[in-house]
């Protein structure tokens, strides 16, 4: 067992977990944040993507113990109190939500992209979402939603 402390969405979550526990299971279990989804637990689908220390990562491929002391943002940390995050709103507006299971991962990958590159173009958006699977096939609507937000940012 390891005593693990992770800052998740601005709150410190501390728990003693088995050393083999992944960050994904820590987030869904110890932190009780079930918005982050487990689609394969093998790094292949992207549903579990969160932002750790500023970078989009697959939480199923990281041990919770590795993330000790890190700062993590999950899909629950996107909205500002009552207000949806612009990306969330754009997903709603573009009809980019179907079964919804891939959406948290898509949103976190998109946020990491726009944090680093606020005016990302279609190619960059495709690359950022390249490892995310959506079996409903809603890729285009999602890419359009991200592009919509990116094109709204003031040009630098």
């Amino acid at each position, binding site marked *: 067992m390891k005593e693990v402390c992770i800052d998740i969405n601005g709150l410190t979550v501390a728990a003693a977990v088995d*050393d083999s526990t992944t960050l994904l299971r820590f987030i869904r279990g110890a932190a009780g944040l079930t918005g982050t989804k487990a689609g394969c637990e093998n790094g292949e689908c992207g549903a579990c993507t969160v932002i750790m220390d500023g970078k989009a990562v697959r939480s199923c491929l*990281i*041990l919770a113990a*590795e993330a000790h002391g890190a700062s993590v943002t999950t899909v629950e940390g996107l909205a500002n109190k009552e207000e949806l995050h612009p990306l969330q709103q754009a997903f709603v507006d573009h009809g980019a939500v179907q079964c919804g299971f891939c959406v948290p991962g898509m949103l976190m*990958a998109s946020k990491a992209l726009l944090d680093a590159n606020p005016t990302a173009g279609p190619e960059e958006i495709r690359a950022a979402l390249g490892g995310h699977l959506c079996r409903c096939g809603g890729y285009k609507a999602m890419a359009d939603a991200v592009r919509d937000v990116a094109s709204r940012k003031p040009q630098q």
Partner: protein
Amino acid sequence: MRIVYEKPATLEELFSLMKLLPEGPGVKLLAGGTDLLPQLRAGRSGPEAKERPILIIADIKRIQEFNGIHETDKGLFIGAAETMRAVAEHPLVRRYQALAEGAGRMGCLEIQNRATIGGNICNGSPSADSLPGLLVYDAKAVIISEAPDGTAPRERTMPLERFLLGPGKVDLRPGEALRAVVLPRPPENSQSRYYRRTRVKGMDLSGINAAIYCESPEPKAGAAAWPAACGLTGFRIAFGAVWPTVARARMAEDILNSEPVTRQSFERAAEAVLADMKPRESSMRATPDYKRAMIPVLIEMGISEMGGASD
């Protein structure tokens, strides 16, 4: 099997951990974890994993010696714990185009943010994306271990190609760790490309991959495209998923480098690879027939792209 996670801060701490359970599978080094975690989940981290009561996972990421990308007098030093993303984007790696391209094609963005070049090498995949690029630049593996007397750590350096022993197997002895790769500085007039064939256009493992490196003696602006007068020399070619490890196609290189490149010499070079290749029969990613067909295609792509370019 119980897993114990440790995060040594120094080499000394790492070596003392590695001594606790000296037989290979007892201690696993963790860098990015993108290969190791799925292996742990599938219960196949080493052949005897199941019988072992304890497996120590030693996270090497914060040990200074495994980090850094910088020039040295022997060439470009890339620490084993550097991420594929860092390798793909680092300004110093740009000169080694096939390596930067390979690292940037591996997995997907989130995987590249964690996966390390050391992990990509030591996992021993016959089609690892970073390896063709590393091999055409004659990369050296820097292997570190504790000195017998317990003082300063010992390093040995070997050609990376020889470090790769077989699928899933690299030349690490008990107590050793891959510290870094060092890439000799290539000549100014050198260039390289990375190619791979996959089943889908997005995230996938390579069915076959290749790096082609060459030099142009006098850069020719607007030179005629392949095969005429491309004037390329100094070929180095590496293929993945063609032999049990990623390897250089030296017989093809010798043919291409022994005379001016013509359609005939190119075809003989490809034939030489075909005669020597040992593809896995049962691969789900590409059949041996497809690989055979792609060997000349990928070599030709490299020659024509680099030969046709004026810069």
